């Protein structure tokens, strides 16, 4: 049986007086992809951002409950969020490369964590780009601006950048929503490769994408995690009527 990497229990999150997450309980296991689905505003991205404390950046955000990662409490005030975010990497909806070279984008995190030797940095850059399946496309132009790459390439570059910190978990917030089908397929193939090494949690509005890439799927609605389970059973025989209504488009 796969190792439990993250264990979320009784997680409640408030933006001011408004409760955005309601008593979320879920375990996340090694080497599997978990897809989070649900309508806009249901809390799936909020949940994703809770896992590496990205919600700390939002004023008036209060969080209760427990998120255990590697046996330690993520929500503990003493947790070093920089270290946490190195260990739990994140890729966003829109590719957001830094406005400098491809090489410097990837070398950024290793430099931040103290690696200065050129050959060591070169090795990390190459390995990260290879893991993100973009090395062959950019190996001869590492010093050119990252912003000159296509949207799909930029997103894979951002994945490479996240991987350069050797994360133990990867969070992806609608990583292909701005990409064409070919770029999307490349990212999905990449997810299938990466999950052999680390767990991936992906927020997606595309249910076909969830069925293609995810081992497990969780359905969120109005801050509640209505149902979670194997992707096949959730999409074939959902247990909750609300899940059924959502995945079959029976919402009014």
């Amino acid at each position, binding site marked *: 049986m796969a190792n439990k990497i993250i264990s979320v229990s009784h997680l409640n999150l408030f933006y001011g007086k408004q409760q955005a997450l309601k008593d979320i309980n879920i375990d996340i296991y090694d080497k599997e992809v978990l897809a989070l689905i649900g309508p806009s505003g249901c809390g799936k991205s909020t949940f994703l951002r809770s896992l590496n404390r990205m919600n700390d950046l939002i004023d008036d955000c209060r969080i209760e409950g427990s998120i255990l990662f590697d046996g330690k409490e993520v929500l503990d005030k003493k947790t070093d969020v920089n270290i946490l975010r190195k260990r739990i990497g994140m890729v966003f909806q829109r590719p957001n490369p830094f406005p400098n070279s491809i090489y410097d984008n990837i070398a950024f995190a290793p430099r931040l964590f103290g690696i200065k030797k050129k050959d060591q940095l070169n090795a990390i850059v190459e390995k990260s780009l290879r893991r993100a399946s973009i090395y062959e496309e950019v190996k001869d132009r590492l010093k050119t601006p990252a912003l000159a790459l296509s949207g799909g390439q930029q997103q894979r570059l951002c994945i490479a950048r996240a991987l350069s910190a050797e994360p133990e978990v990867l969070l992806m917030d609608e990583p292909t929503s701005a990409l064409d089908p070919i770029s999307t397929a490349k990212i999905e193939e990449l997810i299938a490769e990466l999950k052999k090494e680390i767990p991936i949690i992906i927020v997606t509005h595309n*249910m*076909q994408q969830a069925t293609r890439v995810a081992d497990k799927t969780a359905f969120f609605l109005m801050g509640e995690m209505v149902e979670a389970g194997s992707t096949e*059973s959730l*999409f*074939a*025989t*959902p247990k909750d009527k609300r*899940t*059924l209504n959502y*995945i*079959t*488009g*029976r919402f*009014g």
Partner: protein
Amino acid sequence: MENRVERTIEGIRDQVTRLSFSALKAIERAMRSLKGKDRELAKQVIRDDNDIDEAYAAIEKECFSVLLLDSPFACDFLFISAALKMITDLERIGDYAADIAEEVTYLPEGTPFDVNDLFVLSDCVIALLKEAVDAFLNSDVEKARSLAKKDDRIDELFIKVRSDVAADLENKSIVPEAGIVAALIAKYLERIADHGVNLGEWVDYALTGEHALS
């Protein structure tokens, strides 16, 4: 308010229902043609099989269209998948009805045809099929699951008819041609019952997502 997929599925459900009754009617008429040695009716059953084939093709096309264009999930996906499998069984049942009718046309005129239990067998097969259709119409999982047991009785009857025919041929109480016709019809009926059981299994799948292989 129903969405487009729901409306399409309701349309497919109606078509599968009509196809079920057409297949059932084809067997009843084929057996009636045998009982009355009615060659004209038998020929009509054979001709009408084209309608069953056309209905099958139309439903298949519509199911593929939903799968391609709507990527249905959950009960919608289960229903479309089950419908595709059910219409294959129904189309085969129609073929067997035509095969039975064809055998009727081979019966030598004026020869006695009195095979014990062949009509008992056909009554059981038709009853099983009616239950399968009923399980589909009423989304009745229990009824759908009960069909396999009923098929056991049909298998036993088939074996009995088969040995009766062999005995009748042995003691020359029927002519060889009639013996062949009886044995083939018995086999077709036994196969029709198997397809009836399949129908039940797909009704079960459409409702529960579980599929037991018979």
